[in-house]
């Protein structure tokens, strides 16, 4: 809301500096956004929050200043001398849609001279960004700015049938508005019509046919109240916004409608002449009296944390416009003024006292009681995961939770359900809540490739949204990885991450058949039979799909599962003081034999002497080993906790292992 200094002076004494005015208004709720000098006047831009529509008019802003400085608010008297005939002789008004328009008032002035507005009015309107048009139209804008009540003036002679009907549009009805665009009207919109046609889009914009022109002599002055939701929907649907619609959306002062109408007439008579018909056509129920509010004075220290003397409380509230019914030592009972629809409860009055008394009075050094807080399990686990990933050379990325169709369809390993979608895209076609982090990370990889960044090692920790029918989706926390490294390197990172959180976790690897990944360089990892993670190299057509040039490996790990399975406080196991014995094994097996099975046999045959088994390599040589054979190279570390092992004992165990592997896996020692 832009406020002209010269104009504002009319309603309250401005004997303070501009800076002081800006500062105190900011500190009491009208945030100062900027001030511009326009032709010797100052245009002060104030932010008006949506709960204070009363400040969308000069009187509201002036009242705030009057309260803060203890000055008098000078409200124009709005005395419009009445003449002949009674307005009811000339016009009928009817509301057919009371749910869209609860009140409509009309006055008629005949014999005006339409011409330019006086310079003082034109200048004031220009300072606040309005263009002067003619005296009648300008006055209706002026009064709107003055009190926040929108008004409209019609050329009375152009109204057919001497009737105003407030109704919904007929099917297919349209209107040319004063902006000279034609609007198609729809059900739910409120139309001002004469006996034949729509003459205005109620509360939004007037029609071109009944627009005030230089030839106009007779006027209808409308001051009405429209339903805020209806106005908002109408303005949105027609993409037509005005100073009127803006105020109706936020709610006007039902008790001031007649004042606005009289004020408008007062100015018209003064500046354009004419005769005001007697009386007013006022259709719709009068506003019901406001409910009183009781403010218990003890609530002020209880909520604000400061004491405000009772006398000051009463002065603040009275200056703001409440009517005091009762005042005692412990409580005050007041009726809020019509222009403060936002004041309905005790807590609202507490806020009023607080902001006028000044929040700077609230101390910032009271002792807040100490309580303990704990770091959540999830935070501890994620901190470790981040440590391992950054130590392994991965940078943390953050990508949008919502993706476009292409990314969404490319890969979904955790669910077959169709993704949830937003009604409007979050960003450039992205309207699907993602079911995997990997496509987003591959897109980030592509961004980096396009920038020719040589090393692109990324991870992200974020949620994926797995649909559950009509319920809220299951939001699973995932760790996503994209890398230029080989499959076994990324698998190693995943295994290291899991081991860092719980070395006892046993993952079972299995083949996968994701169409994005190369089946000879990818796998699923399961924990207790459930899918826990997958790792894999992209196939060539996968790379093409994501427009990537360099080989890429991806992985995704269910952190929700890992958080549950983590062992955060390891128990110490005493390190045995006796030396270990190592034995290297080179076992030749058929191609189909799996490392995990051989490893299990090896471990099982070490008895109590097993300390660790390290996989070294898989070696193939069709000439020396045979075409369908491979040799598994490993190192086994043995240690006896109760004494020193001898070389012979180690050999014995090795022989035991070899025999068991021969029996179970057909393995031969090389």
């Amino acid at each position: 809301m832009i406020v002209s200094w010269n104009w504002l002076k009319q309603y309250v004494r401005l004997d303070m500096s501009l800076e002081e005015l800006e500062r105190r208004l900011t500190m009491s709720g009208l945030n100062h956004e900027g001030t511009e000098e326009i032709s010797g006047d100052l245009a002060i831009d104030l932010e008006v929050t949506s709960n204070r529509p009363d400040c969308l008019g000069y009187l509201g802003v002036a009242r705030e200043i009057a309260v803060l400085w203890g000055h008098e608010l000078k409200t124009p008297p709005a005395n419009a001398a009445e003449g002949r005939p009674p307005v009811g002789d000339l016009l009928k008004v009817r509301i057919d849609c009371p749910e869209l328009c609860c009140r409509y008032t009309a006055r008629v002035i005949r014999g005006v001279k339409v011409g330019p507005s006086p310079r003082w009015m034109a200048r004031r309107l220009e300072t606040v960004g309005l263009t002067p048009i003619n005296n009648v139209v300008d006055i209706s804008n002026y009064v709107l700015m003055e009190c926040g009540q929108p008004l409209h003036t019609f050329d009375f002679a152009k109204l057919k049938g001497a009737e105003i009907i407030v109704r919904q549009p007929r099917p297919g009805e349209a209107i040319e508005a004063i902006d000279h665009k034609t609007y198609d009207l729809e059900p739910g919109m409120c139309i001002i019509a004469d006996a034949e046609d729509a003459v205005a889009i109620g509360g939004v914009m007037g029609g071109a046919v009944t627009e005030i022109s230089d030839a106009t002599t007779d006027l209808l002055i409308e001051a009405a109240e429209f339903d805020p939701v209806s106005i908002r929907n109408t303005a949105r649907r027609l993409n037509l916004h005005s100073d009127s619609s803006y105020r109706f959306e936020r709610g006007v002062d039902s008790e001031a409608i007649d004042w606005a109408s009289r004020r408008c007439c007062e100015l018209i008579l003064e500046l354009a002449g004419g005769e005001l018909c007697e009386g007013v056509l006022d259709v719709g129920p009068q506003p019901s009296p406001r409910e009183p509010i009781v403010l218990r004075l003890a609530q002020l220290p209880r909520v604000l944390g400061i004491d405000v003397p009772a006398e000051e409380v009463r002065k603040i509230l009275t200056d703001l416009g409440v009517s005091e019914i009762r005042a005692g030592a412990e409580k005050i009972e007041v009726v809020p003024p019509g222009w403060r629809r936002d004041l309905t409860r005790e807590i609202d009055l507490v806020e009023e006292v607080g902001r006028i008394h000044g929040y700077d009075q609230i101390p910032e050094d009271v002792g807040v009681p100490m309580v303990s807080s704990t770091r959540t399990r999830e935070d501890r686990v994620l901190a470790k995961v981040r440590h391992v990933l950054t130590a392994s050379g991965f940078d943390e990325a953050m990508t949008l939770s919502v993706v476009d169709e292409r990314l969404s369809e490319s890969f979904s390993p955790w669910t077959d359900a169709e993704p949830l979608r937003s009604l409007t895209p979050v960003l450039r076609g992205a309207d699907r809540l993602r079911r995997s982090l990997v496509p987003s990370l591959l897109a980030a990889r592509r961004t980096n490739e396009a920038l020719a960044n040589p090393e692109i090692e990324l991870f992200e920790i974020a949620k994926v949204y797995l649909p559950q029918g009509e319920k809220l989706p299951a939001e699973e926390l995932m760790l996503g990885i994209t890398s230029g490294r080989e499959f076994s390197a990324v698998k190693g990172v995943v295994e290291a991450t899991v081991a860092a959180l719980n070395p006892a976790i046993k993952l079972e690897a299995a083949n996968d058949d994701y169409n994005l990944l190369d089946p000879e360089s990818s796998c699923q990892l399961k924990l207790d039979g459930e899918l826990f993670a997958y790792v894999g190299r992209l196939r060539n057509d996968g790379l093409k799909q994501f427009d990537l040039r360099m080989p890429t490996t991806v992985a995704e790990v269910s952190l929700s599962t890992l958080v549950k399975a983590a062992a955060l406080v390891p128990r110490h196991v005493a390190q045995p003081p006796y030396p270990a014995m190592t034995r290297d094994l080179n076992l030749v097996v058929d191609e189909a034999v799996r490392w995990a099975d051989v490893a299990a046999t090896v471990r099982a045959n070490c008895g109590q002497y097993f300390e660790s088994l390290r996989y070294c390599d898989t070696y193939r040589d069709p000439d020396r080993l045979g075409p369908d054979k491979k040799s598994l190279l490993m190192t086994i570390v043995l240690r006896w906790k109760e004494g020193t092992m001898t070389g012979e004992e180690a050999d014995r165990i090795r022989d035991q292992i070899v025999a068991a592997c021969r029996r179970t896996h057909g393995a031969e020692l090389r």
Partner: protein
Amino acid sequence: MKLSEFLAELDELARQAVETMEAAGDADALEALRIRFLGAKSGRLKQVQKGLAGIDRTDKPVAGKRFNEVKKQLEAALQKATQRLLNAETIGEPIRQFDPTVPGDRFRFGHLHPLTQTSEELKDIMGRLGFTVADGPEVEDRWHNFEALNIPPEHPARDPLDNFYLATAAAAAGNSPGDSRLLRSQTSTVQIRVMENTRPPVRIISVGRVYRPDTADATHYPMFQQIEGLLVDRQVTMADLKSVLRLFAISFFEDDVHIRFRPSFFPFTEPSVEVDMSWQGGWIEMGGAGMVDPNVLRAVGYDPEEVTGLAFGLGIERICARRHGISDIREFYKNDVRFLHQF
């Protein structure tokens, strides 16, 4: 063995050893000679020493003395040859100077995202003030995102243009008011969930992604991260709110910081304020705050006559961008590794 033979053998041994050691070309050759002549098990000297046993008793002192002389002579020859080779290594070849300024072998470690770093620090500071982290869903229902936060059905804050409602087939066709679910527009939804499931006192922060329709530009993005604090207990006042925010600010800016409240409006707090913190002679905007609206307390089953609550919210992108001098917040979601590596 006769003494003369023994002495002759010793002389021959000494002559050979000295001659060959003097001629040794490199350290390996010299080492081989050392083993040959002075080897502890099967060196020549050792073998000759065995011959001492066969000398007549009367000749033994002479033999032993000569033996020791020869041994010393061999050891000296070895020492001399060793030194000669060492010197040769450093003389006659280009002189190399050790350069300690050559960089060490660096390994590449990864970087945490700057938003994570800021967020963890904020969680840390609030943790020290007794606030425990609470988490909640990003996809919410209307009760938690609106009703419980004192935003009634026809309130403008619910407008479809200002929220990401989810689409069902019916909603997309415009036939129904739409799916009841939406992407949350603030993390206060988490606070509602906590309060629904606990009795007061409550002292939590909720951190996470929120979504609001906004064209992406240097200072706006349709997804961002919030951190919101909530403290509900008996006798909680706005003075507590200011004091908690001051403690937070002092910790964050590592300096003495003052708090300023400017009256504002949020549906879920009453009174509502914008919070400024003093910084380098001026004030910077930090976020919104207020006392929890009694309607919100009632919605979660608390009695506003028994308890009051303070609440505050900060945008993490804005704090992070200001701290590090990042002028375009879209960088946070572009993930250029040259950006990520700066933090």
